[in-house]
């Protein structure tokens, strides 16, 4: 099962000379060929290995040696020392503590996700082999306990406890489910893992099954991820062929099957009880807990449900030991977290960082700072259930507890960076709108509360709000938090509450001054023509879709505010910056 095959990643840490990287790759490939190593090596051009500004980097797997600042002339030495031999080239070794640590994404972009051989070459299924040849289920759970891994789906429940409770529950059958119903807007961590390294999740699921005593696992993947579904399907097939799934895995008594179930696009089906209902063929709505799924889950049998990212951590923990994993992170939040970094930041994309890193480090060191070097206003984390964290909190270490204290949550890992051009009311409206759209409609606080809050926000954004509305928002938000049945409803008000907490002044400006300082809320904007700058070219007149610009070349032009629909067309087309927007 194990091979000696090595994987060599070549990356441009400057992210600026991709054509030269191609040449670098070619000469690397030629030299490997010359030395007769082409069958023992996979050479991969990686886009991002989590190191920045260090020239060309070479990473050799599975040992994990990283060289930076590599020139074409160094290639021969590297191949001799680390590909042929077991040594290193000291002078090129990258020794800095990296900002990113890749555990979950360890194979993404590195191996061919459709090849089980490449996964195995990166020590894949080694963890499964390890547990089957000498660890009992209690030992596996103990290892997970040492690691301190907490569920990455959002709530952060300790994985080992979930497994322990499910193991201890009575039931003639038990199930494990991989929750791959990722649905936060802008989040694609799980998709990337499923598409880039499906076997790591499958291996994690098999280990979970072994630990809790389940014979069957389901991968619940949203149907909007066709590539992920295809790759997982293929990977499961390969695992069966290799005897890693099915009866008597690796010749032991342990048998385990995995099947795929597709989610039909309801966000709430990521909630575990709704997910179970969905697999059972029922309407995807949450049910009250207790009983928890660990006692009575799928088909009323004890069931453990783990998120994709959680499961992808499992093989690493088993291979490297829980203690090693626990070295990463903070006291209560161990390991790494993958975030989908986006918004007004230079480098957007997936980042995997150790718990405890600050938001400032993520935004400025990894994200490369703000787009256009505009001042940062806030960072939104946790997706639609999360909150907005203001700039003065940027140095807070990121972990489950801290984010909650700030009124946000870890969530599944969306992270959106905002600058002054982002309107706080608009952001709140966007996220709340998502939750209203995705409410299952079962319980009154969420179903009606969200809708009423959205209506109040719309009023504020349109200039018809009153200060009393802020009290109403707070009142409904409290009712939603306290009286909603599931986490979706309980957290749906977070984006509103956290923005009200840190940016109430901006809400008040919308209400009292009828002004949106970010010029996002269209109804609150007025357009006018700055006569000094206007060259009377009539371009705005021609482009105005509602003929709101009147006047003539002699008297000048004016915008009739009663006709103006605030589409911004005149502002866009004016070549002389003669349109004022406020």
């Amino acid at each position, binding site marked *: 099962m194990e091979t000696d095959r090595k994987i060599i990643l070549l990356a441009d840490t400057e992210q600026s000379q991709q054509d030269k990287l191609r040449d670098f790759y070619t000469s690397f490939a030629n030299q490997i060929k010359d030395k007769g190593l082409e069958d023992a090596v996979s050479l991969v051009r990686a886009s991002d290995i989590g190191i920045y500004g260090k020239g060309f980097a070479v990473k050799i797997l599975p040992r994990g040696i990283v060289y930076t600042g590599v020139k074409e002339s160094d290639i021969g030495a590297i191949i001799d020392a680390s590909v042929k031999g077991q040594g290193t080239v000291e002078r090129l070794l990258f020794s800095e503590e990296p900002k990113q640590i890749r555990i979950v994404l360890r194979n993404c972009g590195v191996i061919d996700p459709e090849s089980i051989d490449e996964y195995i070459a990166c020590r894949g299924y080694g963890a499964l082999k390890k547990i089957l040849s000498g660890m009992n289920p209690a030992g596996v759970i103990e290892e997970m306990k040492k690691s301190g891994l907490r569920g990455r789906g959002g709530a952060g429940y300790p994985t080992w406890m979930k497994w322990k409770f499910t193991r201890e529950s009575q039931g003639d059958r038990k199930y494990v489910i991989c929750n791959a119903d990722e649905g936060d807007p802008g989040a694609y961590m799980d998709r990337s893992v499923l598409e880039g390294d499906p076997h790591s999740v499958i291996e994690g699921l098999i280990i979970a099954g072994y630990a809790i005593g389940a014979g069957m696992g389901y991968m619940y993947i949203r149907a909007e991820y066709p590539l992920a579904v295809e790759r997982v399907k293929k990977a499961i097939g390969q695992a069966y062929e290799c005897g890693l799934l099915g009866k008597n895995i690796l010749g032991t008594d342990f048998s385990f099957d995995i099947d795929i179930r597709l989610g039909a696009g309801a966000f709430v089906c990521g909630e575990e009880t709704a997910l179970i209902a969905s697999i059972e063929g029922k309407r995807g709505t949450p049910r009250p807990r207790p009983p928890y799924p660990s006692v009575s889950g799928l088909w009323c049998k004890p069931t453990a449900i783990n998120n994709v990212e959680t499961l992808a951590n499992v093989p690493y923990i088993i291979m490297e030991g829980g203690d090693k994993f626990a070295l990463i992170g903070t006291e209560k939040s161990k390991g790494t977290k993958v975030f989908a970094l986006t918004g007004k930041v230079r480098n957007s994309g997936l980042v995997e960082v150790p718990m405890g890193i600050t938001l400032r480090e993520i935004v400025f060191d990894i994200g490369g700072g703000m787009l256009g070097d505009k001042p940062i206003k806030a960072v939104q984390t946790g997706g639609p259930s999360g909150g907005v964290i203001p700039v003065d909190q940027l140095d807070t270490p990121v972990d489950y507890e801290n984010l909650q204290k700030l009124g946000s949550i870890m969530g599944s890992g969306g992270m959106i960076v905002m600058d002054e051009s982002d309107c706080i009311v608009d952001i709140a409206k966007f996220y709340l709108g998502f939750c209203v759209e995705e409410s299952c409609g*079962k319980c009154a*606080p969420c*179903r009606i509360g969200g809708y009423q809050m959205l*209506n109040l926000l719309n009023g504020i954004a349109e200039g018809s709000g009153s200060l009393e509305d802020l009290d109403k928002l707070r*009142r409904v938000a*409290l009712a939603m938090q306290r*009286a909603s049945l599931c986490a979706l409803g309980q957290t749906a008000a977070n984006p509103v509450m956290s923005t009200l907490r840190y940016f109430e002044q901006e809400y008040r400006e919308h209400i009292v001054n009828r002004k949106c300082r970010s010029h996002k809320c269209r109804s609150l904007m007025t357009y006018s023509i700055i006569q000094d700058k206007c060259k009377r070219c009539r371009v705005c007149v021609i482009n105005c879709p509602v003929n709101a610009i009147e006047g003539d070349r002699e008297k000048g032009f004016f915008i009739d505010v009663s006709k103006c629909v605030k589409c911004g067309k005149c502002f866009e087309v004016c070549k002389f910056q003669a349109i004022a927007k406020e």
Partner: protein
Amino acid sequence: MLIRAKINGIEVQVEKGTTILEAAGTVQVKIPTLCKHPDLHASAACGICIVKVRGSAKMLRACCTPLEEGMDIITHDPEIISVRRTVLELILSKHPNDCLKCGRNNDCELQKLAADFGIRQESFKNFLSPLPPDDSTGTIVLEPQKCILCGRCVDVCQNMQNVWALSFLERGFETRISPAGDIKLADSPCVRCGQCSNHCPTGAIVEKDDTNRVWAALQDPDKYCVVQIAPAVRVAVGEAFGYPVGTNLTKKLYALLRRLGFKAVFDTNFAADVTIMEEGTEFVERLTKQKGPLPLITTCCPSWVDFMEKFHPDMIEYFSSCKSPQEILGVLAKTYYAEMKGIDPAKIYVVSIMPCTSKKYEIKRCEEMFASGCQDVDVSLTTRELARMIKQAGIDFVNLPDEDPDHILRDYSGAGVIFGATGGVMEAALRTAYFVLNGKNLKKVDFEELRGLNGVKEAEVQIDGKKIRVAIAHGLSNVEYVLNKVREAKKNNLEIPYHFIEVMACAGGCVGGGGQPYGVTDELRKKRAGGLYQDDRDCSVRFSHENPYIKKLYAEYLCKPLGEKSEHLLHTHYKARPVYVK
């Protein structure tokens, strides 16, 4: 196992598994709820019943959270009350709030809660979706606009009754109840049992009001209005006038109906005795002369008949051809009574007071319901409609004197009155069957083993050295168990599991009927049934075949049970009515 905990500082000891809501009842706290009903699963939909555990800001749903050892529950504090009020206001913001025009005015759980919470204004904009009412069944009217989506009707229809006519459609704010596929209720599997209306906390499902037709008929000089009252009505109608549950008001009802203007007052109990003569004879003939297959299955309940025709048409051959007491009384009023009195049957207008919504459907079920030459029963009212008529007429029901019914279709035996409770038809039939087979009467008249609220009751009765196996099912979800046993035996050519089966669609039988006063629970069902069994014990005649007026009826008019005239007037047929075929 007992749990010790505190509620509002008061020590409680309850069985493990008791919910906080139930446990609070033991310390005189009635936690408000709009969705939990003692008959049903906790859907946890309304979010009103929230409580706190001391020291935690989190709120739990009392309806579905089991009390745990050592819990310290707070059921009311300013925050809890405020959250409950907000949730209530949110529910009201998607409700028509037109109580004055509503079928549940003054008897509505939502209205009562709004009064209790002192709601004095509409804090939130009202967003009512335009959903038209559905009165297609002619028995119950669905008004989805008034629905608060508590889910009781859906639970009743799907789980208690196994009918699956009602379900949730759409999601989020647009969620609504409707027959699946958005078809009319009349085209759905609905069997018109009305249990949905009986469990609805608001006016979203009510009986179709026919009181105006009755008032009009009473005013019509060309109509000779007569009335009959079903067994279960007499022990339930008093609830609307402050009587203790289960009070038998038979003789007051006779007086009342006369004062409402009916020319003759009959008792459906009398027709129940006729049913026993016919059905009992049918049973004996099938048992001893093989004149038809066994088991014989009762057919007094129109919802059960409808359910069988829709879902179990393979059982038609086992059905008793005997009509229900309502129809028997109707046809006898328009034939026997008409001839005796010399009244033109076409002028006789038969009104029946039933505990049932489905009886409104039965009166036009098939051509045999017109056996007298015109429609045998003209209008069927529910107990609830009768209570309204009494109030409209301003009659002081409580202080009315007792009166007797009108002759010839009058006095009933104890066997006739227990038709209103589950097991009653079976018990009455066995009393007469014993006589027919043995030639003498039972010494011990009461069949205790056939009474009570177990969903399926099975018993073995010795008659003439013969073991008669019987089964009684009530609540349509309990039917399948019994029918499958019959099917299984038939398939494997085994001895039949039962000789005689009684089915009532509603839990508890007609005392728990869909047209009875609101707020039914098992406790109420027992008390109402208790009133009927007391009436049975108080009757001087306890066998249908010994009722002197029954003897007279057969001597003067029908000749003999299953005779030519009986077959023509008192029997009907059944046919398969497949659903979803339109």
